[in-house]
């Protein structure tokens, strides 16, 4: 045994010596010299280092992940097949040349992102060719928001003002990224990678695209790739519902004797704040001002009350009302946290035991208060606005406003804050959790405290730029002081009994903000270290731990014991433990945990962390503090205490309750699962294919690359008949160089007539070559002069008389097509033999396929026209032949004059224009999907030509109807 160990050790040492020797020798001999000039990115001394230089990677972070809701999807995804990465050259958005002629990955500075997205939305061509988007946040814009003008949605408001702009950052120069679906994978680059990508894109811009280029390779496979909505993916088990935990604490605590059954009947004042924010990039959500400043302020106010009680003989038990401090999770997602809490309270859940809604009289929500600054002078009082809902049926909150103003002028005067009533011209309260409480109990007196009057002053609300750099902790402390004094008054406390120490509160607010707002120290802050053992992340390739707060709610994988800390986020545990400590009477009892050494009734275990050391265990305190799960009311979880057995399913248990209070439909937000290794982004230098092939050919060694390979590629070109993307042209060049060359024959242009915008009908006399044309859908290569050839589908039907004339529909886009479209009659071109198999309509004979659906977009009408006019389709012998013909508008519609003839031949033509405004914009797949008019897939044939996305979408739609894939015909 010992000898074996020694042998292994010796082998290990020998291996290490060899590897070390290898690396040193690389340095010592020519290899080090070769790599010398890479010194701008560090001297390369090992193979591993060279590999790292070759591939700049971003792993496990930065993706814009796919979310689903009840009606659709937002975010982005890569190729559904994990093994198929998306790979395309990197191009800076400023260098994009329209029209796009090749597939690219766009490096998108955030400043240009809004205009770019608006352009992308209206351009199927961009959607087709842009394979990925890399956001570069190096230079933030002056204003940016990923949510709309009425965050959360106007449907949740207790008033009807859907067009009111609360979020002024969502103006004309804004785009609702967080609720948008991107048809390509999207990543947010780290600052280092963004700087690197800028250099690479600049290099590419100076290079011929056919030479070596920097590429981006993206892996963003989503498990719910094929799910249309969250109900689908939850049923399929490919996603998890968004969710987290809200926390509430009672001051004074609920009497122990009341237990889970209830309380002592004191009216309740709710003090509410929200816990999380939103952005399209979940890993970068900040939410410093909205909503975390409010949360910090609320926690500081609780501390102020606790500190005052600790330093005096008074206690919260003397209050005539109970103050309940509540931090709500998931509010940006359809007010998920408050909705769930209210449903749990209505259904008698243990997590809300004692929180009797009938006792709730007043609600004060602390909104965005992080940007409060004194103005116009440095010693001017801070202006804090109190928003209330006016109108019949809503509680009168004037007494609350009066309490706040009295507190600000009285015991909290050192806060130097004025509390002002918000403008009466406002339609009502701003987007807030108070909306949920008013929906369930409109008589509640409610106020929202905020730094703004008629609209948000935060230019980065709902974005990753809402970070701690502009948050004023002193202002937050001032709000906390006023809030503490006000609720003290409202709860029946003696105003003079509350001692406000502003210096202490400022320190407390700053320490809390450091924990839950600032990336550094984050939850490594002393305050968190004193009460919990925070989770951390370790970035790939680095041993550095990060305790940065992540203020995206995340998903609920499972739900272990609700009142135990297991499975709770850092923020939820931080809030819970702070509340437990500051809502208690300050007496710390025995050591405890949440499982074996539980505290007695009426107590909670504060400050627990996983350790067998009693010193590190929690202590029992007299407090009432609870976690409340926050997730959609439309899902429930089976066997949810175990990670591996948890199974989410749909439920309608809350349906009746939702209808009772006229809740908008629960959006049922869910996040797709993704496999290990996702997300992954690589930036690397891609060798020119010509160089690689030439390197191989020079050696004279045949490889798997053969003529068939390139023929297969050529067929791609056949489909994209008018595409002259360099990649395709380059492959064609290789066809000429490798394998049998394509023989070009001289031919003459007979006529060239502009048929529609950018579309020309070009008739070419190809002579005897026309004999090779036998079936609609076939194509030819055509080149002008010594230019690169393009692939063009033949638009005229096969001519039984074989006069040698073929018609092509040329979209003046790309080198070959533009050259061809510019020729006059009599000009000479070179044409290849007729290529391709055409549409195999024999697979859908008329007797067995009464229904044939034809789909064409843009110049894709060309082979469809040939098919119809050839008569091979036998439309007159079929019951239902429909042509969905999509173009930009009437001016861009080719062969409009032929439509009556097609109709006469038995083809019902449904024209679809994509250039309509608003709801007028349609796509063929959408029109077909809206009214398929099919009663199953039996006897249905489909013929496709056009935009890739259209083809894919139609394939999915007809597959869903049961149409056999073999009955879906393409001309390649």
């Amino acid at each position, binding site marked *: 045994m010992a000898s074996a160990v020694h042998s292994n050790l010796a082998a290990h040492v020998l291996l290490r010596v060899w590897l070390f020797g*290898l*690396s040193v020798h690389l340095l010592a001999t020519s290899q080090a010299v070769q790599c010398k000039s890479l010194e701008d990115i560090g001297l390369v001394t090992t193979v591993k280092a060279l590999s790292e230089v070759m591939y700049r990677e971003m792993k496990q972070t930065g993706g814009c992940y796919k979310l689903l809701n009840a009606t659709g999807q937002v975010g982005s995804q890569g190729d559904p097949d994990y093994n198929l990465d998306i790979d395309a050259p990197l191009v800076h958005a400023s260098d994009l040349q329209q029209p796009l002629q090749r597939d690219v990955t766009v490096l998108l500075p955030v400043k240009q992102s809004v205009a770019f997205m608006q352009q992308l939305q209206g351009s199927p061509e961009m959607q087709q060719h842009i394979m990925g988007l890399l956001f570069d946040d190096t230079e933030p814009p002056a204003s940016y928001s990923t949510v709309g003008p009425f965050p959360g949605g106007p449907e949740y408001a207790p008033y009807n003002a859907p067009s009111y702009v609360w979020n002024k950052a969502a103006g004309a120069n804004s785009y609702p990224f967080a609720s948008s679906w991107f048809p390509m994978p999207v990543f947010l680059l780290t600052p280092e990678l963004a700087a690197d990508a800028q250099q690479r894109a600049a290099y590419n811009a100076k290079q011929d695209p056919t030479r070596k280029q920097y590429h981006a390779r993206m892996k963003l496979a989503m498990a719910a790739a094929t799910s249309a909505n969250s109900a689908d993916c939850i049923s399929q088990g490919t996603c998890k519902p968004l969710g987290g935990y809200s926390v509430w604490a009672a001051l004074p605590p609920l009497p122990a004797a009341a237990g889970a059954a209830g309380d002592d009947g004191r009216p309740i004042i709710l003090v509410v704040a929200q816990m999380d924010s939103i952005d399209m990039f979940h890993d970068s959500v900040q939410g410093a001002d909205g909503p975390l400043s409010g949360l910090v302020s609320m926690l500081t106010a609780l501390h102020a009350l606790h500190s005052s009680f600790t330093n005096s003989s008074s206690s919260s038990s003397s209050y005539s009302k109970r103050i309940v401090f509540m931090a709500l999770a998931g509010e940006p997602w359809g007010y998920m946290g408050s909705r769930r809490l209210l449903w749990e309270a209505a259904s008698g859940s243990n997590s809300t035991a004692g929180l009797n809604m009938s006792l709730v009289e007043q609600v004060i929500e602390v909104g965005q208060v992080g940007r409060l600054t004194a103005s116009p002078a440095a010693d001017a009082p801070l202006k804090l606005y109190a928003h209330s809902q006016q109108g019949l049926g809503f509680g009168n909150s004037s007494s609350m406003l009066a309490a706040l103003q009295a507190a600000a002028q009285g015991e909290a005067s050192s806060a130097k804050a004025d509390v002002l009533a918000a403008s009466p011209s406002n339609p009502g309260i701003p987007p807030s959790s108070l909306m949920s409480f008013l929906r369930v109990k409109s008589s509640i007196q409610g106020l929202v405290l905020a730094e703004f009057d008629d609209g948000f002053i935060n230019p980065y609300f709902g974005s990753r730029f809402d970070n701690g750099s502009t948050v004023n902790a002193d202002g937050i402390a001032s709000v906390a002081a006023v809030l503490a004094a006000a609720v003290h008054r409202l709860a029946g406390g003696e105003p003079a009994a509350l001692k406000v120490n502003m210096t202490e509160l400022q320190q407390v607010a700053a320490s809390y903000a450091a924990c839950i707002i600032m990336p550094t120290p984050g939850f490594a802050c002393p305050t968190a270290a004193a009460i919990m053992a925070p989770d951390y992340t370790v970035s790939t390739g680095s041993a550095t731990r990060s305790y940065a707060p992540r203020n995206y709610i995340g998903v609920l994988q499972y739900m272990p014991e609700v009142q135990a800390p297991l499975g709770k986020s850092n923020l939820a545990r931080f809030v819970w433990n702070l509340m437990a400590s500051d809502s208690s009477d300050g007496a710390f009892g025995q050591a405890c945990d949440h499982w074996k050494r539980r505290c007695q009734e009426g107590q909670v275990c504060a400050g627990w962390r996983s350790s067998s050391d009693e010193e590190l265990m929690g202590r029992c305190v007299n407090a009432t503090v609870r976690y409340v799960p926050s997730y959609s009311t439309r899902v429930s979880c089976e066997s949810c205490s175990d990670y591996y057995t948890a199974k989410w399913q749909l439920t309608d248990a809350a349906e009746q309750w939702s209808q009772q209070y006229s809740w908008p439909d629960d959006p049922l937000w869910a996040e797709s699962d993704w496999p290990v290794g996702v997300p992954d982004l690589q930036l690397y230098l891609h060798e020119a294919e010509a160089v690689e092939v030439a390197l191989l050919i020079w050696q004279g060694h045949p490889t798997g690359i053969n003529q068939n390979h390139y023929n297969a590629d050529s067929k791609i070109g056949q489909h994209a008949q008018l595409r002259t993307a360099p990649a395709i042209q380059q492959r064609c060049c290789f066809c000429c160089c490798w394998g049998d060359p394509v023989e070009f024959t001289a031919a003459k242009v007979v006529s060239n007539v502009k048929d529609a915008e950018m579309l020309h009908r070009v008739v070419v006399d190809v002579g005897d070559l026309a004999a090779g044309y036998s079936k609609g859908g076939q194509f030819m290569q055509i080149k002008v002069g010594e230019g690169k050839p393009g692939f063009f589908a033949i638009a005229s039907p096969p001519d039984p008389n074989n006069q040698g004339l073929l018609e092509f529909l040329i979209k003046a886009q790309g080198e070959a097509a533009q050259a061809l479209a510019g020729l006059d009659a009599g000009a000479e071109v070179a044409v290849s033999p007729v290529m391709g198999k055409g549409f195999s309509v024999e697979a859908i004979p008329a007797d067995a396929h009464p229904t044939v659906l034809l789909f064409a977009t843009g110049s894709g009408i060309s082979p469809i026209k040939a098919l119809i006019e050839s008569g091979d389709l036998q439309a007159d012998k079929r019951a239902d032949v429909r042509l969905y013909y999509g173009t930009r508008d009437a001016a861009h519609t080719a062969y409009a004059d032929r439509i009556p003839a097609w109709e006469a031949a038995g083809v019902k033509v449904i024209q679809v224009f994509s250039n309509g405004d608003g709801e007028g914009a349609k796509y063929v797949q959408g029109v077909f999907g809206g009214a398929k008019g099919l009663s199953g897939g039996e006897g249905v044939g489909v013929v496709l030509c056009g935009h890739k996305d259209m083809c894919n979408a139609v394939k999915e739609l007809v597959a869903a109807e049961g149409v056999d894939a073999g009955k879906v015909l393409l001309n390649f």
Partner: protein
Amino acid sequence: MAATAFFGHFFLGIGPGIAFFLAVIAPKSFVVLLSFFSAFYWLLVLLLTSAVFRGFVPLPSTQPAYAGALLAAVAIEEAARAGVWQMHKRALSVLQGMSASSGHSFTKLDELYLALGWGYGHAAVHVLFIFGSLLPLTAGHGTAYSTDCPQMSVFTVAALNSLGLGASLVALSVVALEAWGRKSWLGAAYAPLMHAGAALLTLGSFRPGGCTAAVAAQLALGLVNTWYAASIAWKQGGSSSSSTGGGSTARHSHSSGGSAGAQPLGALPADGSSGSWMAAAAADDGGGSSGGGAGREASAAIVSPRAGPPPSLRSRGA
């Protein structure tokens, strides 16, 4: 295209070496074994070199620093070549004795074959270190260019450098061992000078755009050295017996340089009657049907369990 790049570089950098091995070395089992042994020996030498350099890395990224490192590495390797010479000399002595006792001659061509085996092992280890270690990276999607060499990727540079350097090292082994055998100190100086020259040529990559000339020069140097070694074989391979190492040549089965001399580096004489020890062994396996009397004698001697050489010395023939 990853496979294209991988095989392209593989065939460029290693392909010729493999072809040379299959065509020239593989038919001679003893040379094959000697090549493996040589590779192991040079592996140890390079590891020793690495260990010496351990105290000096990282080097300043300057030409003089790298020139010094390269010359030091060359010096160590050339010193190690003295060890090769000692082993080569001893092997010649033993083999000549065995040949003599079995009634065969040990020709100059045989001697050069052994030198070739030593050189092939030397080159193989170098190719492994400076190119083989990089080859897996060519199977990925990316490539790497240094800013001073936009003409070729570092992999292409490494492949071409290893090709040129490999050819030089094989040839220089033949040149050096042959020169040492003749005690031609001028000839013996050729190898270290060329070796140092080949190593220093890579410094051309320090100059912007210099890699093209450096790589071309490296390949040209490889060709020159190969030509020189081939010319030595051409001129001296025809000698009927070895004059090196002091071993006595008891009997020459065939005294004529004839066709064997005209076909350096191992081609069998058309009549199968070479007096060469290796050719005789090859004739036993692959050319046994030939008619010459001496050839038959040689075959009979080698296949005889009593008089033949140890099985390890037998060639697998054609």
